[in-house]
């Protein structure tokens, strides 16, 4: 029950002082001291974000700028249609490896003067090395914080400071001014709600965050609720649903492979592991990702083995699981053998007991994206 002691040296977020003042509890995550929750607690923060607007500090994530002509080279690493990405738009993608696995997932924004990429904190050192080995002009952005404002009232709250955001649609990107500084804004997020991700110069980040928090509709939200929100939204977390041994098709992210990159497309293949991944798209992958609703109240956490019946061998495992505050019930994501029927009840081995869980369509909650 004691707080995890940080043995390694943790990097503090630029807004660590603000978080501490708001009553944050910190945990080590990807080398950073991250606010996992504030005084309200994970449950209240989760529900607040679904009803109002939650402010998340995601400055631990990697922000990278590339030259505008880097999209072609990026296609050599990512099976998304990036040359077809219009200026002012952002697209989800994955870095693949030769085995058809995933090195990281990321967002790629095509902006007026450059390409802006956001990668996961835990992978950013490797991602930068990977990018630099294949793409010219890679520049890590280290002088900007990254905040996310998520929830049905995010637009109203942010538009009070930056009116231009109201005109943006889901996955639009724009550079908009607030109080004399440039905000790099995308209409996107990781909660299943409408919202924005905002890159702000470090020296103005606290003033900007305080301006948002001064709005009664906005509350600070920690990493704990970020995880339960994304889980309910059926969004994969790198290292859980995807890793170097799980393909994007198995992880349910095959949709991110653009038509142009598929067999018969204008630029078919041409990314690491293309042979394996495109074959899986055509003929099916050995495993598939499923959404699960365990019966009863016991959460099924990552690592719980899944079985097709109450006494059979494992046919997969839970990759992420916990309690879904909006559903008032446990929810989980699993990776299972593709041969298991889609309507079969599965059984999770929880502390030696086989507990039933129904396969259900993802996401668990209806997304609020403004398309």
């Amino acid at each position: 029950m004691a707080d995890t002691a940080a043995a390694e040296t943790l990097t503090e977020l630029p807004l660590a002082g603000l978080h501490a003042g708001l009553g944050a509890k910190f945990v080590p995550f990807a080398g950073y001291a991250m606010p996992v929750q504030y005084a309200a607690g994970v449950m209240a923060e989760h529900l607040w974000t679904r009803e109002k607007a939650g402010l998340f500090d995601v400055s631990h994530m990697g922000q990278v700028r590339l030259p505008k002509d880097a999209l072609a080279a990026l296609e050599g690493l990512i099976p998304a249609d990036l040359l077809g990405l219009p200026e002012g738009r952002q697209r989800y993608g994955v870095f693949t490896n030769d085995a058809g696995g995933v090195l990281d997932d990321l967002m790629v924004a095509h902006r007026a003067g450059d390409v802006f990429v956001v990668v996961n904190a835990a992978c950013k050192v490797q991602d930068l090395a990977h990018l630099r080995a294949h793409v010219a002009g890679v520049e890590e952005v280290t002088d900007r914080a990254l905040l996310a404002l998520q929830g049905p009232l995010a637009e109203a709250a942010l538009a009070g400071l930056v009116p231009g955001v109201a005109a943006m649609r889901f996955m639009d990107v724009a550079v908009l001014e607030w109080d004399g500084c440039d905000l790099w804004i995308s209409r996107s997020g990781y909660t299943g709600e409408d919202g924005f991700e905002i890159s702000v110069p470090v020296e103005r980040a606290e003033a900007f965050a305080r301006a948002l928090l001064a709005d009664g509709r906005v509350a600070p939200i920690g990493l704990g609720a970020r995880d339960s929100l994304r889980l309910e939204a059926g969004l994969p977390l790198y290292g859980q649903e995807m890793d170097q041994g799980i393909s994007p098709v198995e992880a349910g992210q095959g949709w991110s492979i653009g038509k142009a990159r598929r067999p018969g497309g204008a630029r078919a293949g041409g990314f690491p592991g293309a042979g394996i991944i495109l074959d899986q798209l055509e003929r099916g992958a050995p495993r598939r990702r499923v959404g699960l609703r365990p019966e009863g109240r016991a959460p099924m956490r990552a690592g719980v083995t899944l079985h097709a019946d109450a006494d059979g061998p494992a046919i997969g495992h839970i990759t992420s699981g916990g309690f879904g505050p909006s559903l008032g019930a446990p929810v989980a994501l699993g990776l299972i053998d593709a041969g298991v029927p889609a309507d079969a009840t599965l059984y999770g081995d929880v502390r030696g007991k086989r507990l039933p869980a129904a396969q259900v369509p993802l996401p668990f909650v209806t997304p609020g994206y403004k398309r």
Partner: protein
Amino acid sequence: MKYTEDHEWLSLDGDIVTVGITEYAAQQLGDVVFVELPEVETQVAKGDEIVVIESVKAASDIVAPIEGEIVEVNEALVDNPALVNEDPTGEAWFFKIKIEDTAALDDFMDEDEYKDHIGE
């Protein structure tokens, strides 16, 4: 009321000890979403993991603080785990143990010693 280093409180009535977790422990756990209780009439040894308690984020155990027989469990927690956060030292008791030797309770901390233990 007596306290353990595992942040349990113990309340003695005759030879029956009622066990719950402290306010401090409930706060550390965060929102409790699941509680699994032991069977009544189970004989438990000190240190046995007999309750599973899960918060939004993680699972933990509650151990038997003392040797004895479980004579009653608080089924209300199974249906309403949030009670643990709302009233940890009152309504949200976990189980009652019938003990042989009531003097064994003398080994536990009193309130002042527990407050020192958690640094209050």
